[in-house]
């Protein structure tokens, strides 16, 4: 119902090659997350899939049907826009009901589905407002509501939860995951949130400047990043990369160690001085300047009360080192 295949897809805006050439297969029913730095082309890729932009070259198939130049309405996809794109002249109710109306649903059915969606999204009290009278998070929820009321062959989400508070975000994340589990519909999801990416995805696509750096399951990316870019991008705070002698000793150009894999030890390891320490309650992030390894970020338990200037010794946990070659590729 929703296998999407992109072949040598290229997209340029005038002079600017936003996506220089990309192949990607998304299996039916998969939950795929696109991550990558801001401006790397995630939204653009989503819009290409949606049919809102023309490919500059390349082809695209949905379920073996070529859709390279099919209009959006014929692709049967639903999308949540990064900028919401709500209809300002319609009430929340009408906004959510719009796709149903377009699909020719009866008023009763529309009402039923809208009510259900509103309940899930905590929007019941706002159904008769106009988008202009809603808070940012409320608007985002309306946009999600509009996508989930109908049954598309795939969902496209562009940072749908970025304006929600933590609690609601957790709820929404679970709602979307459940939606995915019950519908088994292909979902493509753009996010900047590590937790979302790691917990929701069947497969994560890491993009960088329009190129795919790695495709894999969350654990693959976490444990076996293909290169330093992915290593640095997946996991927060990001992996410490160490060059020089320490790396050479491991037979690599650079070695990497995640902050959560650095232990505070009393003997051995690398000695250093605490710089910044950030207390999150549950955890404490330390920036430690070491002699051998440069500045390292360490995730320590929340109780650790080390302060600026304190001396510590850090040791990598065994087996958690990543080794990278000259070109940044994992060895």
């Amino acid at each position, binding site marked *: 119902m929703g296998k999407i295949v992109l072949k040598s897809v290229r997209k340029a805006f005038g002079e600017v090659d936003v996506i220089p050439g990309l192949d990607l297969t998304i299996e039916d029913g998969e939950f795929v997350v696109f991550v990558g730095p801001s401006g790397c082309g995630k939204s653009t890729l989503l819009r290409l899939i949606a049919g809102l932009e023309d490919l500059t070259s390349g082809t695209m198939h949905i379920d073996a049907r070529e859709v390279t130049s099919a209009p959006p309405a014929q692709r049967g996809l639903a999308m949540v826009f990064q900028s919401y794109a709500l209809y*300002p002249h319609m009430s929340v109710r009408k906004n959510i009901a719009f796709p149903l109306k*377009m699909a020719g649903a009866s008023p009763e059915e529309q009402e039923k589905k809208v009510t259900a969606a509103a309940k899930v999204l905590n929007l019941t009290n706002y159904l008769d407002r106009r988008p*202009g009278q809603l808070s940012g998070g409320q608007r985002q929820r309306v946009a999600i509501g509009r996508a989930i009321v109908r049954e598309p062959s795939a969902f496209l989400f562009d940072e749908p939860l970025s304006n929600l508070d933590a609690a609601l975000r957790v709820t929404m994340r679970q709602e979307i995951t459940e939606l995915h589990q019950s519908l088994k519909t292909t979902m493509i999801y753009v996010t900047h949130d590590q937790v979302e990416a790691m917990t929701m995805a069947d497969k994560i696509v890491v993009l960088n400047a329009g190129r795919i750096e790695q495709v894999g399951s969350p654990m693959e990316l976490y444990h076996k990043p293909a290169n330093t870019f992915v290593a640095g991008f997946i996991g927060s705070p990001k992996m410490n990369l160490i060059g020089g002698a320490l790396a050479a000793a491991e037979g690599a150009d650079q070695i990497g160690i995640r902050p959560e894999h650095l232990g505070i030890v009393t003997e051995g390891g690398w000695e250093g001085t605490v710089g910044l320490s950030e207390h999150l309650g549950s955890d404490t992030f330390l920036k430690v300047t070491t002699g051998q390894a440069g500045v390292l970020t360490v995730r320590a338990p929340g109780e650790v009360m080390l302060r600026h200037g304190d001396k510590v010794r850090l040791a990598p946990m065994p087996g958690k080192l990543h080794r990278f070659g000259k070109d940044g590729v994992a060895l």
Partner: protein
Amino acid sequence: MARATTPRRKALTTLAAWTVALIIFFPVLWMILTSFKTEASAVAMPPEFLGASWTLENYAEVWQRSDYPRFFWNSVVISVGSTLLGLGLAIPAAWSMAFVPGRRTKDLLMWMLSTKMMPAVAVMIPIYLLFQWLGIYDSKIGLVIALMLMNLPIIIWMLYTYFKEIPSEILEAARMDGANLWNEVLYVLTPMAVPGIASTLLLNVILAWNEAFWTITLTTTKAAPLSAFIASFSAPQGLFYAKLSAASTMAILPILILGWFSQKQLVRGLTFGAVK
């Protein structure tokens, strides 16, 4: 804006705005006042305000003298008809130019406007002959078509500007929601552009209503609108200001009333709050 203006400031702007508005409106007001004066009082020097001798005679005479309802009805049909027909053609065209601009779009727009560049008097004979030949001379349908063609570029231009203000993402959202082109234009674009469409509509009804060259050149009796009615009152031998004023007042009154009713639409601003 969410901040209330202070009453003082509001009073001041009110005063300023009304002063300006009255200055602009004064000639029209003066014309309306004149229409209630006797001819002698209309040209009296110094001008008479309160002391003037007021009368309804001018209206009575104008009403009696010509078949006002017929002219009026022709004006309504011609101006509304041509505007609606024009909108029907222009909305899709403006949609394409605003949301799917190509390299040639601006040239195309300019070209459309350039069809209006030919001075009316210069093409009078060709058009006249054409209308005779097509058998639509002195018919409402003929005038509807002529005025529609005359105003079409203007309608397209105005709609184009208003459509340009609408973020294309909202139309894209509609497309994703399964709306076809028709639904997109009908349910999303048009309602969002209502103030723009309303002012386009009004302005073009007025333009058509006031058109006084072609409407007179291309009609005799059957399709003659109010412009011909006015032409039968202007500049005859004798004093005429009061009667001309009365006739003019009768000609603009309907459109003034239309303006009054449509002003809410005209001035309603939409909040585009739903788009970042």
